[in-house]
C-alpha cells in the first residue's frame, strides 16, 4: 500500500495478481455476468488506487476490505438489474455504476487457502437449507424475509438458520486463528 500511495502502478499490478482471482470469482458469483463482473472488478481496483490514502488511514487488512467492497458493488449492480427487470420485464444486462463502500476491520492471520478450506468444510457440515439461506443472504443480498419467501420457509426458521450458521462461522475462524 505504501508503494500505491507513492503512485507506483506496479504495486497495483502486484495486488491484482494476488487478489484479482478471488475478487473476480466473488463478483462473478454475485453478478452472474462476465462482462459486468469485469466492469465491477475494474471499478474496485480503481477505487483502491484512488482511495489508497483513505485506506492507509484505517490500516486494516486489505483482503476483507477488497472482498467487502467487491460484494457491495456487485450487490448494488444486482439490485439495480433486478429493479430494471421488474420494471421492464427485460433480461437485458445493463452496465450501471455501483455505489457504496464499506470497510471491514481486523487482521486475518491465517493463510487464505486454509481459511477457504475451513469455511467450505464448515458450510458443508451445515444442513443444506441452512447453507442455502446463508448463501442467499451473502451472494444474492436477500433480506431475512426475502430468503424465507424464496425458500418457502417460516421467517423465524430462516433467522435461526442464518444466525446459527454465522455464529458457527465466527467460532470456526476464531479457532483457525488461534
Amino acid at each position, binding site marked *: 500500500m505504501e508503494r500505491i500511495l507513492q*503512485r507506483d*502502478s506496479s504495486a*497495483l*499490478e502486484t495486488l*491484482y495478481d494476488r487478489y*484479482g*482471482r*478471488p475478487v*473476480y*470469482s*466473488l463478483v*462473478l*458469483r454475485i453478478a452472474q455476468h462476465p462482462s459486468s463482473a*469485469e466492469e465491477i*472488478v*475494474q471499478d474496485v*481496483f*480503481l477505487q483502491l*488506487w*484512488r*482511495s489508497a*490514502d*483513505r485506506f492507509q*488511514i*484505517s490500516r*486494516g487488512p486489505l*483482503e*476483507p476490505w477488497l*472482498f*467487502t467492497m*467487491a*460484494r457491495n458493488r456487485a450487490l448494488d449492480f444486482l439490485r439495480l438489474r433486478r*429493479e430494471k427487470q421488474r420494471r421492464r420485464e427485460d433480461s437485458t444486462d445493463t452496465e450501471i*455504476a455501483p*455505489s*457504496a463502500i464499506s*470497510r*471491514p*476491520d*481486523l487482521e*486475518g492471520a491465517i493463510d487464505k487457502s486454509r*481459511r*477457504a478450506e475451513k*469455511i*467450505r468444510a464448515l*458450510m458443508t457440515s451445515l444442513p443444506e437449507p441452512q447453507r442455502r439461506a446463508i*448463501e442467499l*443472504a*451473502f451472494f444474492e*443480498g*436477500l*433480506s*431475512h424475509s426475502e430468503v424465507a419467501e424464496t425458500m418457502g420457509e417460516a421467517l423465524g426458521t430462516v433467522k435461526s438458520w*442464518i*444466525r446459527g450458521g*454465522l*455464529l458457527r*462461522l*465466527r467460532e470456526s*475462524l476464531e479457532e483457525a486463528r488461534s
Partner: protein
Amino acid sequence: MIDCEQLAPLYEEYALGILEGEERAELEAHMARACDRCSAGVAEARYVVSQLALLAPSVEPPPALRGKIMEAVKSSASNPVRAVVPLAKTSAPRTIFPVWAWIAAAALALATGYTIRQMGNQNTQLAELRKQMKLATLQSQALQNQLEQSRMVSSVMLSPDSTPFKLMPKDKNMPMVHAYLHPHMGVAITAEQMPSVDPAKTMQLWFVPKAGKPMSVAIFRPDSAGQIALVAPVNMPKDEIAALAITEEPAGGSPQPTSAIVWMAQVN
C-alpha cells in the same frame, strides 16, 4: 433497551446487512455512543462475513482485465481532479471536523494512554494487555473511519469543481440540508440540528432526473448529535439531474420514493 450480551449474536447479521427493525436500531444506537464491545464485535463480524467470499467458485479473470485496469489507472493518474485532497494541505475551517470527532479523539487518547500504562505491568497480565491493545486498535480504526468520512466530505466541499446546493425543507421548522455535487468525487451532504428519525425509518437521498424515475443515491440517518456528513457516489450526469430530493422511507430504503419529499433543491 437491549444490552451488549443480547446484541453479540447479531453482529454477523448486521455485517451481512440483513439485520432489521428494533435489533438493528439498538445495535446502531450502541455503536453511535461508542460502545466498545459492540464496535469491536461488529468490526470482527465484518471480517468473518467477508470470508464467505472464499465460498465462490474460483474463476480465472479474463487475461485482458489486468491490462484494462492498468490502462484505466494511467488515465486516472493523468486526471488530478480525481485525487482526494489531503485535508492537512488545505485551508479548511476547523468546523469541518464535527464535535464528535474531537470527543472521539480524546477518547482514543485516553484509551491509548491506558493501554500504554498497562504495558508496564507484569508478564502475568500480558494476555489482558493484548486484549486492551486490540480494543484500542479497534477504537482507533472506528475513529479513523469517522475522520475519513469527514475528510471525504471536506474534500468534496472544498473542491472548485463542486457545485453547492441548498435543499430547502418543506417544513419551515426543519433545518436546511447542504449538498455539494462533484462530477467524480460524489455528492456530499451536510446538515446540523436534524430531527431524530424513527428507528423503523431512514432518510433517503434521490437524484430526480429530467426524464424518468428518481434514482436512489444514499440512505442515511442523523447521528446522535443531529448531524449529517456523508459522501455518496454520483450515479447520474449532472446535466440530467433536475433536482435533489430527500424523503423518509422504511428502514433499509426503497427502490422508489414512497413518501412526500421533505427536502428538495433544483439542480437544472
